[in-house]
């Protein structure tokens, strides 16, 4: 180890990021991030969803080109948007969705793209030998390099992915939520691998939402909030309270309308919904006039819960009733006929037919209304136009193609569909994702109005702030289960985050942050 060791650090700085800025049209993903990794340390990267962690990784690994700022490896700038150069300089990334090929063998996966060759032919013997050596180095000597990847469990696949990174002589290994797919025992094995690597001098960037893990494995922590560095390389044993405070970042207030008042009878009742592995026994009810938030981290099972309720995905157990009527599983058409509506997570791929006119998109769920023998296309168009106008959709021309609208207006088109349908319970999955601030405010206003009109609204969101801002009640999901049921008017973003990230939210911690 060379270089002067500093507090909590281990060796010389390998990777350094200075003032990194990345803007997408309409969005500032990174607004000046500083970050550095030293040899042999575990540097944890922390931040709420959308704080800019993924963008930072993508810039560093050469997937996207930063708008401004510097990325230095050993003090030398890294060529921008050049994944091969990043790998060549020893910066390797293991993504959440492991980029492995199921049909290939373990050894082939490890050397995919840089296979050892003898002349023009693959040197299979050497490939297997080196794969074995790499896996042994990770303490996973039991994995046979000849096995097809499909035969391996997630934890073993992750080891293969790490071995692949090492095959590039990685000096910095970036791991994006490596523990998300692992159970407790496998996490221990992963920690073993991380410790072996750091002992060899590899710097590890460890991204996780689990604060307890960070304390156990990390040396230093960098916290991102709203695309900026909220804390740069502080000690990993910083208190949970402090870390949560740093993650919350800036506040925007005037965004939210007053909460609806006057809660009515139960409309939707979900009992013991299981859709394994994502949803593991969830029960809740939605009343008329309620805006019920469901918070939690990405991957906590929220979208899957909504899809299981609608019958879009099969459920192992569970009963759903809407206004006293049982909704059969796997029959979204029946659920919709009974008065359920879903604005799905991904508007473009699930919510809308982008090539279709707004008219056809809005009326699709309720064509029966316009059928008098044949479809009354004029009446259809007029009704859709009125609905779009009432939501201030821009443009409100019902002949425009849905694909031409901005994200916020596309969301309004989806809402218009369910308003036209006069649904009783509306499930909104990330309705403000990718939506600009003014449109967000409008969507909040619409949601509140709907609840006041007596609809039951369920709002799934990764933006905890918005849940605390508009919901009358907030449930928090973690690892497929509900872990909290909170009064929306009283809860705070920090409290929600604490429930979402802490494995066992003991009463003392809640007191600490509340």
């Amino acid at each position: 180890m060379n270089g002067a060791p500093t507090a909590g650090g281990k060796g010389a700085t390998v990777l350094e990021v200075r003032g990194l800025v990345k803007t997408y049209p309409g969005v500032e993903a990174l607004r000046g991030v500083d970050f550095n990794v030293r040899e042999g340390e575990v540097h944890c990267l922390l931040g709420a969803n959308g704080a800019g962690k993924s963008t930072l990784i993508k810039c560093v690994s050469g997937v996207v080109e930063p708008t401004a700022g510097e990325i230095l490896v050993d003090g030398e700038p890294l060529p921008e948007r050049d994944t091969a150069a990043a790998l060549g300089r020893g910066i390797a990334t293991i993504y959440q969705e492991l980029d492995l090929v199921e049909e290939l063998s373990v050894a082939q996966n490890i050397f995919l793209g840089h296979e050892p060759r003898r002349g023009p032919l693959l040197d299979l013997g050497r490939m297997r030998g080196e794969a074995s050596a790499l896996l042994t180095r990770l303490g996973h000597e039991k994995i046979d390099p000849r096995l097809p990847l499909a035969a391996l469990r997630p934890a073993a696949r992750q080891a293969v992915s790490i071995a692949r990174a090492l095959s590039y002589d990685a000096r910095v290994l970036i791991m994006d939520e490596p523990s998300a797919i692992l159970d407790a025992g496998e996490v221990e094995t992963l920690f073993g691998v991380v410790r072996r690597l750091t002992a060899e001098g590899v710097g590890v960037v460890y991204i996780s939402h689990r604060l307890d893990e960070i304390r156990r494995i990390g040396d230093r922590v960098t916290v991102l909030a709203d695309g900026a560095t909220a804390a740069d390389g502080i000690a990993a044993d910083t208190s949970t309270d402090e870390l949560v405070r740093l993650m919350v970042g800036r506040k925007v207030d005037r965004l939210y309308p007053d909460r609806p008042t006057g809660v009515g009878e139960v409309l939707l009742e979900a009992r013991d919904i299981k859709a394994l592995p994502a949803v593991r026994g969830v029960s809740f009810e939605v009343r008329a006039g309620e805006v019920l938030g469901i918070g939690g981290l990405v991957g906590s099972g929220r979208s899957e819960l909504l899809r299981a309720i609608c019958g879009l995905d099969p459920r192992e157990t569970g009963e759903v009733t809407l206004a006293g009527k049982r909704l059969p599983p796997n029959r979204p058409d029946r659920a919709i006929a009974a008065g359920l509506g879903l604005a799905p997570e991904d508007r473009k791929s699930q919510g809308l037919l982008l090539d279709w006119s707004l008219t056809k998109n809005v009326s699709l769920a309720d064509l029966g209304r316009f059928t008098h023998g044949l479809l009354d296309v004029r009446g259809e168009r007029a009704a859709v136009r009125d609905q779009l106008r009432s939501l201030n959709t821009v443009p409100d021309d019902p002949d425009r193609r849905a694909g031409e609208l901005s994200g916020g207006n596309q969301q309004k088109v989806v809402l218009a569909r369910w308003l036209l349908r006069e649904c009783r319970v509306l499930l909104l999955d990330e309705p403000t994702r990718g939506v600009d601030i003014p449109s967000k405010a409008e969507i909040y206003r619409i949601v509140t109005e709907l609840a006041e009109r007596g609809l039951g609204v369920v709002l799934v969101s990764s933006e905890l702030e918005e849940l605390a801002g508009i919901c009358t009640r907030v449930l928090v999901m973690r690892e497929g289960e509900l872990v909290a049921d909170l009064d929306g008017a009283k809860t705070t973003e920090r409290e929600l985050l604490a429930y979402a990230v802490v494995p066992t939210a003991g009463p003392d911690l809640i007191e600490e942050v509340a």
Partner: protein
Amino acid sequence: MSYAIALRKRFGALQFQEYALALVVIALFVAGAILKPDTFPTWDNVRNMLTQASIVGVLAVGMTFVIATSGIDLSVGSMVAAAGVFAGTMAEPSGGTFIFIVAAIAFAALLGAVNATAITFGRVVPFIATLAMLSIARGLALIFNDKLPVGLLNLNGGSFGDPSPFSLLWFGTGKIIGIPVSVWIFLGIVIAGWVVLNRTRYGRHVVAVGGNREAARIAGVPVRRVIFSVYVLSGLLAGIATVLLCARLGSASPVSGELYELDAIGAVVIGGTSLAGGRATMVGTFLGVLTFALIFSLMTQLDLSTEIQQVTKGAIVLGAVLLQRPEVRY
């Protein structure tokens, strides 16, 4: 914004293509009139062309629904042969036209239902399921009457030249106010197809399923039922095409209907219905059928060989698909 773009915005890309194809049809007709002024622009020739077109035209209407769901039905040609021989062996001894028609349509619809079952419940991709049916139905057509055609002249009810109304041959050679019965039937089915596709909930659902299956499901469209139905519909229309073909020929041949599926698919595609689904036009299909009929007639009158006709047909399909490529990529 240029005028052309404004036009497209106003009418949409689909109608734009329909107009373009209408121009092609007119151009082909004018070309024929110039090259063969004595024989081409005559009432007889037009009537012939339409009669020729009616069989593939009926199949193309069903194919439009199938392709609108982003599916394909390769088996329609074989189904025509199988349904014809089947219905012929059922009806020929007793001489019942009604039995023939019912048997042909019911049998073809049944084969369509087999396709539908394999695709919706067996989750076989439509290309493979209907490719299998192409082979199965052709085999059945050969088995039913020991590889021999079935003569249907018993089902005449009058002389061959002047069949009595509603006898089988009347459907192939009879006329109503000077227009062949088969052409009336073809036009009726095209209009009915247009109405169902554009003016009913079912038609909207069909196109939605092809455009974005998941979005359609989330909007409450019974996706599986819709997909099932289009293959049954395609079979049913193949049954009607069977009646028209057998009525014209006066026999049911086990080797009839070969490559009809390609003509039907070609007509649908040059009409502007997207093979990827989500976009379907019955007017386009009709114009596509007319285009093929005009080319066939024109080239026959110019004494060009069938090989050249095939090359031309293929080139037109390819050209039409190239023109349809989306301008905007998402």
